[in-house]
């Protein structure tokens, strides 16, 4: 029995690692969409983070500085999107696509001399006794710090959106920008900040791929992770904890699929490796076919705002 050769604790551990990059990108995009902006450039910002993070980490020898660079790289690209959509009032869908196409090209250029290099290792967090717990220790407490910080970030975003004053303003801007404007909130300022946060998160997610999960730099290495993160936000109905559940579910599919490949199942690798995309589509269908308004999309999502007076 092939499935017998798969150790569930190792599987669970690998699942958390596989889920982390898309969870990071998704939680950032969730905040962006909550402010009423649809940024389809997640894939572009992710690959930017993967590339910049890798270059910085290799040159400084520090994965930590690499992650900082990745966040800044993703943020820089997102500022371009903010400039286009918020100041120059361009179509958000087209601008997001442009961001992705541009990001893929730019990183292929930037990363050219870094193909085939191994980045500095990110140490695993030493959790002492915790990681000695049978089964759970192996599955939950043997990771690098980014995995735990990502979970903390999900919690922080949840708290921010639900309980903080700034979070409520952000939601107001996203639900009805005209009303928020009339109340005196700075719609554009809020949105630009949200877009920057989304860019930084996507950049971190990309760097997690190139510095920890793979770890290597190859052209176009995100292979759709950014798009899956976008789908995840819809799946989560714009709720942070559900985004995390979705990311872990997705991570499970990826890891299971990889394990089946390794176990030598008699299905060609190409068919197994399309399963994450197919499952994402399937989940999107199930969520969006739900009756009525349960979708919970922010009211002003993808609508341009221009103060007329």
């Amino acid at each position: 029995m092939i499935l017998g050769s798969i150790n569930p604790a190792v599987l669970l551990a690998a699942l958390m690692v596989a889920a982390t990059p898309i969870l990071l990108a998704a939680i950032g995009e969730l905040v962006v969409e909550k402010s009423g902006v649809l940024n389809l450039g997640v894939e572009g910002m992710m690959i930017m983070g993967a590339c910049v993070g890798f270059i910085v980490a290799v040159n400084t020898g520090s994965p930590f500085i690499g992650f900082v660079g990745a966040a800044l790289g993703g943020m820089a690209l997102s500022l371009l999107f903010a400039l286009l959509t918020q100041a120059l009032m361009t179509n958000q869908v087209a601008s997001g696509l442009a961001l992705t196409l541009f990001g893929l090209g730019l990183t292929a250029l930037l990363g050219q001399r870094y193909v085939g290099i191994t980045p500095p290792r990110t140490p695993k967090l030493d959790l002492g006794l915790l990681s000695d717990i049978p089964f759970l220790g192996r599955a939950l407490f043997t990771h690098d710090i980014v995995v735990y910080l990502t979970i903390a970030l999900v919690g922080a975003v949840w708290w921010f959106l639900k309980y903080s004053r700034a979070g409520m303003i952000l939601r107001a801007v996203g639900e009805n920008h005209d009303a928020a404007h009339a109340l005196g909130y700075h719609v554009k300022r809020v949105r630009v900040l949200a877009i920057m946060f989304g860019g930084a998160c996507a950049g971190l997610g990309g760097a997690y791929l190139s510095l920890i999960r793979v770890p290597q730099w190859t052209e176009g290495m995100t292979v759709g992770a950014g798009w899956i993160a976008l789908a995840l936000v819809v799946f989560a109905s714009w709720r942070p904890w559900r985004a995390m559940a979705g990311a872990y579910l997705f991570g499970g599919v990826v890891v299971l699929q990889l394990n089946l490949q390794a176990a030598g199942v008699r299905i060609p690798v190409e068919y197994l490796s399309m399963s994450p995309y197919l499952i994402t589509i399937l989940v999107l269908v199930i969520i969006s076919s739900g009756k009525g308004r349960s979708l919970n999309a922010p009211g002003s999502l993808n609508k341009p705002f221009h103060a007329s007076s």
Partner: protein
Amino acid sequence: MIRLEKRKEPSKLWRIANPFLAVALTMLAGGIMFAMLGKDPFVAIRLIFFDPIFSETFASYSRPQLLIKSAPLILIAVGLAIGFKANVWNIGAEGQYIMGALFGAGVALAFFPAPGWYIFPLMVLAGAFGGFLWAMIPAILKTRFNTNEILVSLLLVYVAERILAAMALGLMRNPDQPGFPGSRDLRRYEAAYNSELIANTGMHWGVVAAIIAVIFAYVMMTRHMLGFHIQLAGQAPRAARFGGVSPARLVIICLGISGALAGLAGMFEVSGPGGQVRIEFASGYGFTAIIVAFLGRLHPIGIVLAGLLLGLTYIGGELSQMMLQLPGAAIQVFQGMLLFFLLALDFQTNYRIRLTQGAHA
């Protein structure tokens, strides 16, 4: 104080001027980028935009390439533009392109080595059908389950790429050369070969199809009721619904047309310039066509010009790779910048910059 004021009507002048301005700005920014890469910017720009057509040394090779590279771009972009006008965002043309190629090549490989005049027309039908079928997945999911067509059509690109790899390594692999991935070379199978119609021009059936598609799209968008409905649905969805335009029908039509055209493009490529089903067959035409559609202002004639220009950048990119050792990715950056500049400039179409005195908000 600088203030943006919305124009009552989009400016016609800027609409037409902006693509040209965007190209000029891209050349400028691209020149700076080339200089940063340590290459002479003037030589590089000339090599990309001028030499493929006019240089005596290169033109004999690259002039025919212009039609070969531009035809698929135009064919795909014409279809995409129809959808974009109606706010139906098919961004998975790359996947439909791959499926069209696989369906077309599948027919050819099934008939191999039989001769017959009917084989090529059957491949054309199969190619269009393959792209159509692949586009129907997001279309039906959108109309039945209200699933976002942007995400589904894009995710299906990755699925199509995996199917392509599986076919090149498995079902469609050339049985006479089992050591190599990839199918039989269709250029060596006369009944299936999409050959040059006029020697040394690059003119093949795909170019003919692109011309027909442009005329067809032009007539449909300007003279036919369907074209009117599409424009109406894009600009005033509520009014369109009151006017009896079915949104679901439009989604099916827009995705169907663009899918079929992308499939055709893939089929003409695999049976001609591409030659065989290979893992690296997909070359990003489906994504570049999005830029072509926007640069051409979603108008069939504009798309022809934009398609020729971006086709030129492909050839010029190869040329500069060869002559200046410029990285291949530079041309991708170039194309991305073009779209950015165009989008950025377009604010002038819809808004007017006013300098006002004082800070009365």
